[in-house]
């Protein structure tokens, strides 16, 4: 919105479209709830705020309500309660600016990759048939499928299918990309390619909302994250702010564990713990090289010294008291 770039006063020129209160948010949900017939609550009072321009990781174990949330955002499933806004526009106007991969690829097996993209492009009322050929070729190029464009989808490998789904999400100029488990079924090379593609797309200013049950994946490519568990939002924020609740520790590997523990204690480090040839303590913002110097100065044989930053997995365990890989 224009209000974002102006310091004060009413925006000049055209009035903002009604309901567009999202100069800063690509997705906002308030109390979003989905209860399926049979009483199962898939999503429970979800308050999500996805800032524009972010790469937003939507994390949670399988069955935690991620896909149902995405289906609601795309208008496929009607919420039982609550409301949401995508790009601050009515959904029918927002969706042409949203590219989506939902629950894996789904295409017509008897059509070629290119014909499949043409089919989905025809479904978008804002897409122009005249430019379809060029846009389809660009999308295929971007995911590295140009060579297989004429091949039937039936004969695509799982990795190619996943990439075709991403190509379908990139058929037009997008402001928001919603990717549901985009690296499912990809080999490590394919995973790396998707990751760099996401970074590239985000660098163009597109907001990327990516769901995953792989914490490490989200940590590597996202600026923000939200964590779901059994339909509820456990936490959300920048990756750094999510981690900030947990302490950074230093770990010393040494044969002189007793001496090392004493030195760390003398340095004033809190929560010194030792187990075997390993001593750990809270780092509390100190420079690790000073700790090393102090240890060596006291004659402790240091075999290894490492700073242990909490991972999102630790954040999740810290917030829920559970391991991540449990089915909700």
């Amino acid at each position, binding site marked *: 919105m224009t209000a974002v770039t102006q310091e004060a006063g009413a925006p000049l020129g055209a009035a903002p479209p009604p309901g567009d209160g999202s100069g*800063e948010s690509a997705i906002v949900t*308030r109390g979003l709830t989905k209860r399926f017939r049979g009483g199962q609550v898939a999503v429970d009072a979800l*308050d999500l705020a996805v800032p524009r321009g972010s790469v937003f990781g939507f994390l949670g174990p399988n069955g935690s309500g991620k896909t149902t949330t995405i289906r609601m955002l*795309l*208008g*496929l499933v009607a919420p039982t309660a609550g409301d949401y806004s995508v790009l601050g526009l009515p959904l029918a106007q927002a*969706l042409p600016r949203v590219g989506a991969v939902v629950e894996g690829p789904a295409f017509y097996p008897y059509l070629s990759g290119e014909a499949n993209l043409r089919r989905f492009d025809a*479904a978008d*009322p804002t*897409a122009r048939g005249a430019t379809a050929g060029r846009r389809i070729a660009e999308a295929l190029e971007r995911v590295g499928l140009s060579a297989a464009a004429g091949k039937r989808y039936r004969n695509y490998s799982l990795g190619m299918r996943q990439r075709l789904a991403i190509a379908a999400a990139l058929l037009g100029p997008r402001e928001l990309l919603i990717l549901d488990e985009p690296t499912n079924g990809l080999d490590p090379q394919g995973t790396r390619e998707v990751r760099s593609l996401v970074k590239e797309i985000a660098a163009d200013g597109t907001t990327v909302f990516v769901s995953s049950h792989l914490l490490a994946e989200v940590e590597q490519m996202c600026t923000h994250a939200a964590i779901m568990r059994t339909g509820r939002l456990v936490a959300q924020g920048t990756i750094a702010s999510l981690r900030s609740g947990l302490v950074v520790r230093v770990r010393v590997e040494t044969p002189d564990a007793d001496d090392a523990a004493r030195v760390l204690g003398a340095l004033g480090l809190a929560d010194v713990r030792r187990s075997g040839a390993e001593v750990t303590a809270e780092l509390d913002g100190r420079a690790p090289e000073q700790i090393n110097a102090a240890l060596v100065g006291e004659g402790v044989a240091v075999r290894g010294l490492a700073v242990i930053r909490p991972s999102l997995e630790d954040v999740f365990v810290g917030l829920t008291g559970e391991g991540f890989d449990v089915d909700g």
Partner: protein
Amino acid sequence: MSTADATAGATAGTRARRTPGLVPVKETLRSAERRPRHPAERGTPAARSPWSFWRLLRSELGLTFRRPRNLLMLAALGVVPVVIGVALRVVAGEDGMGGIIEDVAGNSLMLTFVSFSFLVLLLMPVVVSVVAGDSIAGEAGAGTLRYLLAAPAGRTRLLAVKYLNAVVFAYAVTAVVALSALATGLALFPAGDVTLLSGTTISMGEGLLRIVIAVGYVGAGMAALAAVALALSTFTEVSIGAIAATIVLIIVCQVLRAIPELGEITPYLLPTRFTNFDAVLRDPVDTAALGEGLLAFGAYIVLFGSIAWARFSGKDITS
């Protein structure tokens, strides 16, 4: 988030923004800088392309008429009049022919009506049911429905396209039968004036016109059946279920029609009206029978179209 909140937050500039949730979001400078700087482009809704509906319909027709299964069914239907024609030709060579065989053997155009009366009761409805019953359920089962709707195809728009596609296919089925029968008839039987069921004779040109009317009527009947199949298609993700349900309905109707005690309900059964096309073989054309039939078809289309729309527009797409 309301407009007022957001505007206040934005004009305050550096004030820390809080978002719902357990952890406050401190937006990084990086993400703020990356915000796209095209406010005008972002504010205006993307224009609908004026031809987009027809583009989607063309895409749909392309899928239907390129799909091997559908072409095979059309080809099979096209063969039936040839078989009937050859069989009648063989029988006509023998003595003691009469009735229908005499009619056909006497004139090439009659084979079209004979073919319709054979096919309109089961085979044509089955073929139409396969395409119309598959239309929504097939996409749902394959998962392509979620991508079409996210595109966004629009539910009402997609349903309209699916139905129009089924109507075009219904007329294609009817036309294939008529053309195949006409060609076979002209090849095997003498061309010339046509003797009607009423006993009067009309010219061949007039006869062809009556075939066109019959095609229009039978096609409308198949279109009404397609509405039933489409409605059933919105209730399942298994297309064979919708197809089978439609075919079972047709067969049940035929059975009910055969029970004389149930004569009161037969006028309300859709297949009863399919055979009314023989009104074009009266002199003059029995427009009252055709009109009643078309009215019944219209009623079925409105009723089952509404059911399909009511179901599909509010359905959760979980496939």
